[in-house]
């Protein structure tokens, strides 16, 4: 069943100061099924974040349309939760209040709100930090809070824009396992943008590879590694085969993008 339909969506940024307009994204068609975990893999500047922002409603397509559950996306909304690469917790709210932000906006009663917040803090292992301010937490903890904040809202789809990009390798690996664990239980539809090949394979049920700017879809690969996935899968032969293939695809694009 299709959850998200991206139909003929492209993005051209208008010219600045008499320059030429920038074509960030070629017209793209993509259908994302219910409960899919799709990673969009591409070199930097390929328009993958632009695509995600358009799904979120933070940017408007130059052509085409985006449909979520049959409804056209025209503006940002609570049914499309988003986790950003930058740390976007509200610094004046505690961790618990951050997680409750969307629920309060929806008008969920206090008691129910607190229950949901407690559950999500437990799932991301931050119960004892409920009353801390964001700046008192490490980067990994802040991104865990951001994931909890987006999911506490119970969105129809979760969008993640390189959420672990600023974290160190070890933390990043742990965060991937945590996110995958949540997805294996919740089976939310997830759209995850990354430039990290290993991350893209490990997390996804489907990897979409994008070409260098102007971005278009270059490859679309199902990942049939079994669930529950353990981190050791990253060293398995099956994993290596997929990784080798994607490395080739991405390398060609990175060479184009870097212009070397």
């Amino acid at each position: 069943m299709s959850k998200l339909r991206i139909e003929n969506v492209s993005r051209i940024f208008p010219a600045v100061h008499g320059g030429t307009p920038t074509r960030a994204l070629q017209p793209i068609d993509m259908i994302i099924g219910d409960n899919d975990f799709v990673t969009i893999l591409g070199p930097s500047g390929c328009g993958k974040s632009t695509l995600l922002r358009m799904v979120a409603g933070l940017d408007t397509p130059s052509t085409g349309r985006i449909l979520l559950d049959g409804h056209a996306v025209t503006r940002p909304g609570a049914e499309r939760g988003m986790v950003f690469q930058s740390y976007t917790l509200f610094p004046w709210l505690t961790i618990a209040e951050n997680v409750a932000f969307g629920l309060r906006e929806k008008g969920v009663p206090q008691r129910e709100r607190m229950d949901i917040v407690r559950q999500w803090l437990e799932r991301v292992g931050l119960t004892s930090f409920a009353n801390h301010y964001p700046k008192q937490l490490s980067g990994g903890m802040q991104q865990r809070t951001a994931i909890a904040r987006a999911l506490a809202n119970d969105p129809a789809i979760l969008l993640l824009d390189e959420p672990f990009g600023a974290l160190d390798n070890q933390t990043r690996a742990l965060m991937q396992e945590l996110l995958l664990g949540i997805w294996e239980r919740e089976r939310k539809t997830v759209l995850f943008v990354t430039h990290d090949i290993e991350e893209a394979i490990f997390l996804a049920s489907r990897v979409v590879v994008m070409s260098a700017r102007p971005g278009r879809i270059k490859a679309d690969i199902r990942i049939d590694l079994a669930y529950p996935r353990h981190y050791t899968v990253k060293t398995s032969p099956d994993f290596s085969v997929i990784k080798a293939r994607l490395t080739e695809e991405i390398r060609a694009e990175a060479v184009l993008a870097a212009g070397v």
Partner: protein
Amino acid sequence: MRPLAPISNPLRIALGILFFVLFVAGWAYATFGGYVSPTFLADPVTMLKDGWYLLTRHNFSFDIGITIWRVVGGFILAAIVAVPLGILMGAYKPIEAFLEPFVSFARYLPASAFIPLLILWAGIGELQKLLVIFIGSVFQIILMVAVTVSSVRRDLVEAALTLGARDQGILGRVLIPASAPDIAEILRLVLGWAWTYVIVAELIGSSSGIGHMIIDSQALLATGQIIFGIIVIGFIGLISDYLFKAVNRWLFPWSLS
């Protein structure tokens, strides 16, 4: 000394006090040593004696009180008008486009130049003094608050949007709380400037206040009294600044570095 290397707290306080000591010592050297005529500059001891005389014989504490009330009154009026306007200007571009050019122009109108007009309009009573402070502060606060609100991190606004926040939620739950510590800091800064306007307002057409005392003392060549008045203003400024900082720390614990 290494660039940007921190120093211990006691050392910082000691160095801060040291400058005051050196300043007074230099002043004492210049006056007691006879390098400056007492007609033009009183020595520190005369200044203190004159200050005591003012406080005990001339009810100078009343003048201090009236000056504080003028500053605080005019400043609060300005803040009540300017902070909401500044927030609206920062948040909504049409309002900014409507008001910004005029406010930018009005900001450069010197408050002191309005005094003769204000005396015509409002007489020489308290209202005129409050209006001088008001005019001097209100445009500054509006512009600085607008800049602060409009420069709230865009990604925080976007995060709130993807969490389902609507326009009012963005204003009330993101833009205002995000800029609140900076707005408080702006008010602290502008309150400092308000002190310079009140003295000017009191130099002309006034029968009370620190500024009035200073202009009276000038006629008597009582430089000790003038300096005492100036130092009192400095101390009140220092105290109000400290109080403002303490309140800000208490209100916005999350913004401390």
